[in-house]
């Protein structure tokens, strides 16, 4: 790797097109246009210099903006494909995805499913595109930022004639009182907040150089953001669970290592009332029928104290009371509990009266907690009832046998044994909603339905996300970088004396209109002509 020594004395890295210091052309074939390509100051970019080894080739591939743009465009199109039909996570769970897509969307749905588009955003190829964008971001940035930094740091005030002439804004003025003119122009430049460097009476006025780092700063932010995304896959970094808690119930919060418990004091669903709420809403409420106003679970968070053996009731200490509403999750120790689901009026208890069929007089009453039924209820006076079997969610299976679909008391059924003084061996009765079966012939006694109680159930999402801070940092850095690059401009004005001529060149990375206007104001009244826009002559 040989370095290139310029005639001005500066030693440039191999591959430099324009001398970092004086700007003279070092590699003629790469700087042939009428105007210099100033995008990276003609610095030596690795990707433009080496192309031999396989590493060079990979480097050059990913450092190309063309490849980067293609990756963006392909990702964009792929992302759009995923929105044609709902993704798997948004379809109802009534049937398997394969069935659902075909049932709902016909052959197209089937194809969509077979191509794997129902889970497009977690497909390996989508992730490969995102990862390639990440690699491209890293390589592109390193390939450009290092040489650009060198070039901008080493640039000297007096630039070579050829460099000045081949700037987009360039002009020559014949002048007499050069010193006086320069003082006036310098004053104007300072007023416009340029930092001024002088050398042999020549001027380099520069401002907003830091905006050149904007793209690299925002790329850093994006990379941090993508790293955050990768960390998601590390176990324990991200928890997504749901806990259903009935009113009045205290339950262990999953994923908290048995440390935290939650009591649900009550769930509330409020809807807007067109008479009581803001009158302005009445028309909208009438049109919509019903508009939800609030979903709320009033809870108490407990922490376990001391060790307890399995099976033993844990000793709990109250941590805090909180009303969880949508947009107002309960947060503790990196966890957040969100109000996401609910179920109204789930059966919680059923009451029965034991009666003698012939007299129809209640001999005793029992109330069965449907979530924790007892095995025997003593009704006094020698009457008692045993629960022989309990089916919380009763149905007959294919063989006609009773069974339970789930542990949720949606359709409770019991097999009772009624023990009475005159039937000490007991009578057996099968009781379900609206239905009584007496399998061993007519009974004398009967369990008569006496009422139900219901409770609401809150479904709370349990979330822990240890990667959030990385996304926040990445997003913040991205915003800083993108603002830096978008809202500031890097402007340079070279003013050079040459005998009794004044040469003025100007360069900006963007917003030429603004630079021209500013140069106009700076040179106004100084006798120096505004430089011409050499691009517009063409």
């Amino acid at each position: 790797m040989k370095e290139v020594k310029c005639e001005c004395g500066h030693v440039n890295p191999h591959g430099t097109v324009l001398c970092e210091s004086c700007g003279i052309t070092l590699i003629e074939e790469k700087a042939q246009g009428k105007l210099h390509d100033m995008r990276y100051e003609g610095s030596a970019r690795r990707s433009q210099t080496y192309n031999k080894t396989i590493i060079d080739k990979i480097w050059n591939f990913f450092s190309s903006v063309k490849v980067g743009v293609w990756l963006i465009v392909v990702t964009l199109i792929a992302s759009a494909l995923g929105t044609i039909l709902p993704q798997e996570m948004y379809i109802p769970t009534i049937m398997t995805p394969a069935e659902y897509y075909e049932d709902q969307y016909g052959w197209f749905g089937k194809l969509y499913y077979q191509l794997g588009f129902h889970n497009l955003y977690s497909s390996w190829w989508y992730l490969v595109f995102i990862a390639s964008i990440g690699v491209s971001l890293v390589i592109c940035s390193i390939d450009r930022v290092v040489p650009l930094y060198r070039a901008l740091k080493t640039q000297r005030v007096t630039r070579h004639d050829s460099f000045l002439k081949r700037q987009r804004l360039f002009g020559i003025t014949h002048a007499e009182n050069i010193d006086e003119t320069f003082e006036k122009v310098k004053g104007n430049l300072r007023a416009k907040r340029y930092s001024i460097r002088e050398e042999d009476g020549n001027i380099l006025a520069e401002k907003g150089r830091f905006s050149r780092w904007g793209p690299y700063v925002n790329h850093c932010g994006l990379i941090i953001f993508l790293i955050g995304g990768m960390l998601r896959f590390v176990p324990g970094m991200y928890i997504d669970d749901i806990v259903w808690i009935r009113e009045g119930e205290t339950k262990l919060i999953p994923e908290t290592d048995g440390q935290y418990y939650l009591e649900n004091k009550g769930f509330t669903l409020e809807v807007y009332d067109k008479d009581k709420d803001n009158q302005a809403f009445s028309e909208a409420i009438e049109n919509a029928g019903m508009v939800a106003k609030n979903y709320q679970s009033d809870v108490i968070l407990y922490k376990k104290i001391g060790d307890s053996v399995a099976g033993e009731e844990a000793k709990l200490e109250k941590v805090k009371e909180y009303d969880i509403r949508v947009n107002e999750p309960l947060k503790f120790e990196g966890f957040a509990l969100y109000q996401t689901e609910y179920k109204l009026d789930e059966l919680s208890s059923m009451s029965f009266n034991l009666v003698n069929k012939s007299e129809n007089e209640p001999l005793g009453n029992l109330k069965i907690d449907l979530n924790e039924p007892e095995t025997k209820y003593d009704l006094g006076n020698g009457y008692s009832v045993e629960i022989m079997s309990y089916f919380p969610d009763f149905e007959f299976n294919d063989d006609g046998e009773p069974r339970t679909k789930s542990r949720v008391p949606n359709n409770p059924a019991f097999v009772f044994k009624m023990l009475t003084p005159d039937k000490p061996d007991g009578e057996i009765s099968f009781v379900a909603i609206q239905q009584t079966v007496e399998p061993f012939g007519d009974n004398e006694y009967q369990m008569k339905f006496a009422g139900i109680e219901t409770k609401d159930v809150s479904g709370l999402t349990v979330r822990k996300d240890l990667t959030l801070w990385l996304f926040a940092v990445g997003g913040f850095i991205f915003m800083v970088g993108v603002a830096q690059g978008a809202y500031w401009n890097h402007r340079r004005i070279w003013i050079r004396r040459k005998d009794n001529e004044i040469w003025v060149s100007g360069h900006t990375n963007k917003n030429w209109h603004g630079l021209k206007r500013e140069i106009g104001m700076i040179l106004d009244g100084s006798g120096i002509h505004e430089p011409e826009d050499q691009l517009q002559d063409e």
Partner: protein
Amino acid sequence: MANLSSNLLLVAFILYLVAIPFFGGAIRQKKGLQKEKSFEKWAKIGITITILGFLSQLGFFITRWIVGGHAPLSNMFEYTAFFGMCLVLAFILIYFLYKTSVLGLFVLPIALLVIAYASMFPREISPLIPALQSYWLQIHVSTVALGEAILAVSFGSGLIYLVKAIDQSKRSKSTTWLEVIMYSFVAIIGFVVITSGFAISDYKATYNYIDKNDAAATMEYSMPALFGPHEWEIVNKGDFEPLLEVPAIINAKKLNTVIWSLGAGLILYILIRLIIRKRIGALLQPLTKNINLDLVDEISYRSVLIGFPVFTLGGLVFAMIWAQIAWTRFWGWDPKEVWALITWLFYAAFLHLRLAKGWHGEKSAWLAVLGFAIIMFNLIAVNLVLAGLHSYAGS
């Protein structure tokens, strides 16, 4: 107060409409656009009326906020009207940066169309569902609207560039695509005319049909049904008999509205072509006679540069923060989220093509058009067609 609010919007609409001819007058007087130091008389009147219109619309926004008790950014009408207001604001700002009257001639009609389009949706003040009850509503939605509006200015100036730069003397791919853009404007007018026409005549027809879950349902049309729902049946005798029936998976009513609008737009477009006897692009071309191509190219580019960070902040950053609070996760691949990402990727590609591949001028102007098309797709199609978490904004 609610009435005052609607009236202020109407006043704003009329003021924007009145301002347009003044900008037209201003460009006829102007010769060198770039070095104009003083305001032209016509332009001065035009921009004053525009600012008055903006203030009036701001009044609409504030009074509606007071009446409803929440920022009026919660449904299709409110969001779209606000987007129109931001577009005017963005135009006013860019106008003072570059003093280009011709921009008003293009951007104000777009803003008018946007507001007219907004007014076709239910306008009553509606209460907020729990997910929307957060101060992030105003932060997220207003920033998105502002960002998209600034990006829309880039479309406006890109359009000016194309109108001027495209050679109208012969038919080409460019002239055709330019006419496609013109037709889409006309189609929006078609939508507004058809919707308000049938609304004024109070047209209603109800059909029984079988929905996609095989359940019986009814659907009320507010314009004659060219497309009837799946296995339709007329409820009231004498109502219009649909010409075609669509499968249950497609929302027949929405499709019907789209077809009516496109059809009305097509008739209007043909009428215009028959009257002016040339392309709409050719009709508009003289308006851009005095404009400097480099300048509009630069305005287009700068609008993207200014709007891109604002859009990112509102459409992605604030959106993610709120999604984390309301929906438990900052990103969930909901169609609206994905289309915000697509918009962002698109403008990122735009900036890279421009910075590194030197896509200036016409190519860049076409990209600005495409970007705006994506934004409109996200506003219209994603809310109304692709159902998702954001679809409550549709109603």
